[in-house]
């Protein structure tokens, strides 16, 4: 029954990764491209599915959950987009190319990109919530022929906090996905739309039986978006959201990410709305 010590898993021990490149996305928000620092199977070490996240450790500073924001088709490396909001994320945004960080993962459930093949897909992002959605968008576009109509509805606070602007413009230009961006408020030089992201659903034609939605953003944005889609006849099981909770382990052990019966680190972060709708109605779960 006793196992030799070496065979026990070490779920809390990070693996060193080298930062290859960093760039500023928007003020206070950096993207980092990384690869395993050690030798070995880099592709295997970086395999993930859209929607998953890593626990990222900055030497001596701490560890935080960060979603993968890069293209799943680019093997052997990972890209993250990090907003500096506190101790660890500040330190992470300050890491220079060549620097080493520690990674554990990938963890969590995934955007159901395989299950929704053949369907129209509405991707709805709020603020930094576009980062965890981007691997799914890459996947949809990499396999464009497998899906029906593709739509991205994205809301940011201000024009200067719109993530991935060049890329959005590029995708928009090649017509394979319908891109719609709105901001909460803007100066006169903004020629785009001002309003909330759910406004886009008001006039949009959609076939509720053929439509699946992937939503990530602040909880309030996800609530309004999910209910707007329900109102349009999209079934709760075809609406998918990604939850955020405090996380210290990623492996169902620290208890911190509990959301009713769920551990968001492992049962989530992606949930179909029918599984969490009853909790979404209640405050402070």
């Amino acid at each position: 029954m006793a196992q030799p010590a070496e065979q026990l898993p070490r779920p809390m021990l990070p693996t060193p990764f080298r930062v290859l490149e960093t760039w500023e996305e928007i003020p206070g928000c950096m993207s980092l491209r990384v690869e395993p620092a050690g030798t070995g199977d880099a592709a295997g070490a970086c395999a993930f599915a859209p929607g998953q996240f890593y626990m990222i450790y900055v030497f001596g500073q701490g560890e935080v959950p960060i979603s993968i924001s890069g293209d799943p088709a680019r093997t052997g490396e990972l890209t993250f987009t990090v907003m500096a909001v506190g101790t660890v994320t500040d330190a992470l945004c300050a890491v220079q190319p060549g620097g080493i960080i520690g990674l554990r993962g990938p963890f969590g459930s995934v955007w159901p990109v395989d299950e929704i093949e053949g369907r129209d897909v509405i991707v709805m992002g709020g603020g930094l919530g576009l980062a965890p959605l981007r691997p799914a968008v890459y996947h949809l576009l990499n396999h464009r022929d497998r899906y029906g109509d593709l739509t991205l509805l994205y809301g940011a606070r201000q024009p200067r906090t719109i993530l991935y602007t060049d890329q959005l413009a590029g995708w928009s230009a090649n017509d394979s996905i319908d891109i719609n961006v709105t901001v909460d408020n803007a100066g006169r030089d903004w020629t785009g739309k001002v309003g909330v992201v759910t406004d886009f659903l008001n006039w949009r034609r959609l076939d509720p039986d053929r439509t699946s939605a992937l939503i990530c953003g602040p909880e309030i944005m996800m609530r309004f978006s999910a209910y707007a889609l329900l109102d349009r006849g999209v079934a709760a099981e075809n609406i998918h959201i990604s939850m955020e909770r405090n996380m210290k382990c990623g492996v169902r052990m620290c208890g911190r990410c509990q959301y009713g019966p769920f551990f968001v680190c492992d049962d989530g972060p992606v949930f179909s709305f029918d599984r969490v709708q009853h909790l979404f109605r209640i405050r402070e779960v």
Partner: protein
Amino acid sequence: MTATTNKAGVISRDSLEGLFDALIARDYVPVGPTVREGVIVLDELRGVDDLPEGWTEDQDAATYRLMRRADAALFGFNNGQHAWKPYLFPPKAKLWEAEKTPDGGFSMRETPDAAKAFAFIGVRPCDLHAIQVQDAVFMAEQNTDPLYARRRRKAFTVVIQCGQAAKTCFCTSMDTGPRADGGFDLALTEILDADRHSFVVEAGSAAGASVLAEIPHSEARPDDLAAAEACTKRAVDQMGRTLDTTGVKDLLYGSYESRRWADLERRCLACGNCTMVCPTCFCTTVEDVTDLSGTHAERWRHWESCYTTDFSYIHGGSVRPTIRSRYRQWLVHKLATWQDQFGTSGCVGCGRCITWCPVGIDLTEEVRLIRDSERKKDAADGHVQEHPHASD
């Protein structure tokens, strides 16, 4: 554990030292109940003399008092503040260390655990179940905590079957006692009457049987077994509290918006005592630190309580800023969501949270009040509500 159900034996009071001798000879560190500063605690034991001979406790909500017994029972009490949890899941543990390397990177190594193998002596049946509840958390097929797993696999458990119950005990409601039928290495029942002081002993594993073989003992006679049965019956009869578990999961899933939580908020201090004394609570926080030179880093894991606002903090604030939502998290986790997470109740009915709550909040009473208030609500609504839950 495989039950090598040999026939039950009897160890006399004077031969019980042989249990310690056999365990110490096998390099176990015996841990068990002993009296320190007016309470029965768990600590390392040298032998029978360290046991709380002739002591008992009076427990009730927010009450704990050590008292003298009229006899010389060695295990004539129930559960003190301490659970066995700290020995398998330390309150503070260094998980790993890292050193900066000249190339700008760092190397990491798991911190070896220096703890010896523990022999737990006098584990109450409810606490044995609590250990099994934590096994499901820390030794799940997918995710295993190496620190817990190593200590647990090395540990030897000697159960003491209960012959009495405290006013705070409700193991019969939770189906965890007062008698354990398996899952131990050895189980003792203390028999103490006018003409004998002895222990009926059963081995529950091969390791248990081999230890027992070294302790002087005789085969149990029918009257020994009858006396052991009478002990169990006495404990059942004395059971101080009950918790009606019928449909408790659905009851609590349906009670997130109950008015009872506001009432609890007026009494609960959010001190977290109930989570610290609870033998099943497993939540932790992680602290990453460096030394002054900045070249050596360590990761520490500490127990954490869901009663802190930090527990659920995400950017912008705590998910559960009010005490009512934190008490709700605790109670609903213990009795309802735990069942969906781990296939078992998170409460084993040990009663510690009742005794050690500074204001005497009693979960058995709170569940009763929630049940009553939901029943009244349903009656007022004129229908039975369907409670959505996540078990499907």
